[in-house]
């Protein structure tokens, strides 16, 4: 996978998280996974199809998801209810949209699926024939992993 696809997502994640959490974000080291990997507990997934295809996943623990949703709503949410889920979905939506706007300006054309939110314990994700690049983002609310698996359409 070419790095130029992931950079807009990392930049967008950094900018959006910084703005909605109103705090400093630390970017961790990028790493590559080509096999099945565990999911932390709450994962928002957006699909891409067009000049490039694949998916972007925003992965975090349930505790982090609650803390992030609470900060974004300006109130303490005690469970991952409809509002909390809508908040995490919207976070994924904002980051993806900002990245896509950037990629669009670079000349890539593709469509997005609405974000889907997965919650549960002991989940794994397997990307058949597409390697995934992962960039961890450290926030005061916890770690959020930006997990991008995209390839050029053959």
């Amino acid at each position, binding site marked *: 996978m070419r790095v130029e696809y992931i950079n807009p997502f990392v930049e967008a994640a950094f900018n*959006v998280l910084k703005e909605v959490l109103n705090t400093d974000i630390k970017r961790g080291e990028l790493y590559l996974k080509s096999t099945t990997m565990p999911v932390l507990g709450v994962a928002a997934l957006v699909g891409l199809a067009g000049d490039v295809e694949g998916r972007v996943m925003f992965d975090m623990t349930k505790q982090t998801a609650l803390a992030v949703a609470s900060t974004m709503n300006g109130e303490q949410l005690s469970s991952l209810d409809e509002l909390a889920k809508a908040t995490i979905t919207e976070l994924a939506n904002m980051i993806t949209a900002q990245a896509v706007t950037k990629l669009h300006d670079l000349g890539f054309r593709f469509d997005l699926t609405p974000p889907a939110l997965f919650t549960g314990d002991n989940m794994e994700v397997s990307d058949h024939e597409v390697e995934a690049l992962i960039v961890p983002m450290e926030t005061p609310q916890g770690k959020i992993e930006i997990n991008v698996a995209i390839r050029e359409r053959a």
Partner: protein
Amino acid sequence: MKTKQDFPSINEREPDGLKPDGTPFRVLVVDDSMFVAKQIGQILTSEGYEVAATAADGQEGVEKYKELFPNIDLVTMDITMPKMDGITALEHIMNFDKNAKVVMISALGKQDLVKKSLLLGAKNYIVKPLDRKKVLERIAQVLGKTSTA
């Protein structure tokens, strides 16, 4: 008890959400995300605006606009929504009321989308994430409340 007399105001500025006659501007919020609708509602009501109704898709947005008309001052319109997208809903509202004040609010800032919305009659285009100040400034500007462009 008349609170206005009991508690003299330190800040003399009128909230932007009020018309010259003191009644609030009425806003229709169209967005499929519960979080975003709540966020827009909180920003607007904090400045005195009244959320007259909310709609969760474009089709419902158009229907509610027609129901509320002419007792509606502004619409905030999301773009990516189920059933009917915000651009199509904007077209329907502009066809129904050519003086409608519709402000697009989207996470997508693609140039062609912004251009298309403005050509179809949208009065402004706000890119998310939403910042309270940014939203209030743009909306006040659309309603002609401020002289700052």
